């Protein structure tokens, strides 16, 4: 694979960067050409499916890796971002494809005639060695998340890994959650604004879909996004427990009005 230089790939326009999180160009760059998820084996980056690729932040970083993907497919519900990626990244990276995932979301894709909230991935069974979903399951309501976990398991290669981020809580703190209630919502107008799942449920979901959690990174700041890596049950890596996160520093302060956010929140993309 011919390596490409950063200056050959344009940065997405600011209005798109604001919608996906950190806007600084360095979050779209990869100057040392490292693998962007260092805890994932190099060979898993062979065929990448990027669920919620936005305006190509991860795509751009992957393309700049020393060991770049042979094949990449990014999907997102924001049509404008997908068109930008098709017009600005694919011409330089012909093995990178981007497809509009035409599902409803109140703020980004509301003009659907019918409120379709889930669609199968445009991918064959066991097609991808790495499925990435950064800040996606943090914005899916429970039944959507369950649908897409099935899809992840379907398209994941036997030796592949799934890398996703989640907001998680301990269900013991919320005993009013009954039966199949496993998510907390904080915005009734747009429930997908942020969705927080129970830790138990994430394990159960993995098992229901023939997967297991093989790596987990607690958020740097309390209440931030967890990084969860899953693989098929047959994968040689052992299942792991979620580490404690209670002692992580608090991101929010109550000093006076306005409750300013901790500046480091920008790094982990919580502002999305």
């Amino acid at each position, binding site marked *: 694979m011919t390596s490409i230089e950063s200056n050959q790939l344009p940065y997405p326009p600011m209005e798109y960067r604001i919608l996906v999180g950190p806007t600084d160009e360095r979050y779209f760059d990869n100057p040392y050409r490292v693998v962007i998820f260092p805890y994932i084996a190099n060979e898993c980056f062979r065929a990448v499916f990027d669920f919620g690729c936005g305006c190509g932040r991860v795509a751009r970083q992957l393309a700049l890796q020393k060991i770049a993907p042979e094949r990449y497919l990014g999907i997102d519900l924001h049509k404008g971002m997908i068109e930008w990626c098709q017009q600005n990244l694919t011409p330089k990276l012909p093995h990178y494809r981007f497809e509009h995932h035409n599902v409803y979301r109140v703020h980004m894709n509301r003009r659907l005639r019918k409120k379709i909230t889930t669609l199968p991935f445009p991918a064959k069974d066991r097609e991808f060695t790495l499925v990435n979903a950064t800040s996606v399951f943090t914005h899916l309501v429970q039944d959507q998340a369950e649908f897409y976990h099935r899809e992840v398991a379907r398209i994941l290669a036997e030796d592949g890994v799934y890398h996703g981020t989640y907001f998680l809580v301990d269900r013991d703190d919320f005993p009013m959650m009954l039966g199949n209630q496993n998510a907390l919502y904080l915005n009734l107008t747009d429930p997908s604004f*942020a969705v927080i799942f129970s830790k138990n449920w994430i394990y159960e979901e993995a098992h229901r879909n023939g997967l297991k959690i093989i790596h987990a990174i607690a958020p740097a700041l309390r*209440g*931030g996004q967890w990084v969860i890596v899953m693989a098929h049950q047959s994968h040689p890596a052992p299942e792991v427990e979620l580490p404690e996160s209670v002692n992580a520093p608090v*991101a929010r302060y109550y000093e006076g009005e306005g409750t300013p956010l901790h500046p480091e929140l920008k790094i982990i993309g919580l502002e999305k």
Partner: protein
Amino acid sequence: MLDQTRQIPIPPVEFRQLVGPTDPKYFDNPTGELVYPRIPSQYYRKVFDFGCGCGRVARQMALQKIQPEAYLGIDLHPGMIKWCQDNITPYAPQFQFMHHDVFYIGWNKESPNKTLAFPAEDHAYTLVTAISVFTHLEQDSAVFYFAEVNRILEEDGILHATWFLFDKADFPMMQDFQNALYINIPDPVNAVIFDKTWVVNEAKKHNLKIITIKPPVVRGGQWVLTMARLNHPSPEKTIPAMRATSGKSGNWMQRLGAKLKQI
């Protein structure tokens, strides 16, 4: 009077099931003690019971040695109110009940009203009680009813209410205006959990402060907060850290283990 109130029947089990504990002992008061031991007797003079259900608290208060002079219970369940009117008021005429015609998908789905003013005059009540009510109100409704409590409470009256609370420090994704967590989108008031700091600040906006706190027995359960006017002689109490409360604990992974094997 007490002999008469002892004849108040226990509500039918189908109503009891809807409000929580079904055992008749939770509707009884055999010793005639005050139903909230932490609240002095003078506050029971005029009681407003927001979300009175099928009269659990009303029945217990009617059996107190020191009975309220006036009691008004409101609830959005028309059947329960009718039952209370037919079965409690005849034995305790100072106990009145009114249907509060606001929408709830389960029990009052025809109503066009999300909130309604309390059927009470300003500063008319010495005690407003709201058991398992603010645990089922959306944030904007809770603000509305805080204002109503402030309006109908006597200058030296108190509010006794239960809440699900969380610490927003654990949820940095929440914006300043988002202070409630919901567990059920089709039925958002299934359970509503409020940020503890928001409750304190919202109370202050409505001239109230927390004077007693009873943490939940089980972690994540209902907190009992008693509030009084800002000028009340009792000192303001601070809600302790959420994780300081007792309850279910231990390694959740161990408990989960057996369940995972079944999947």
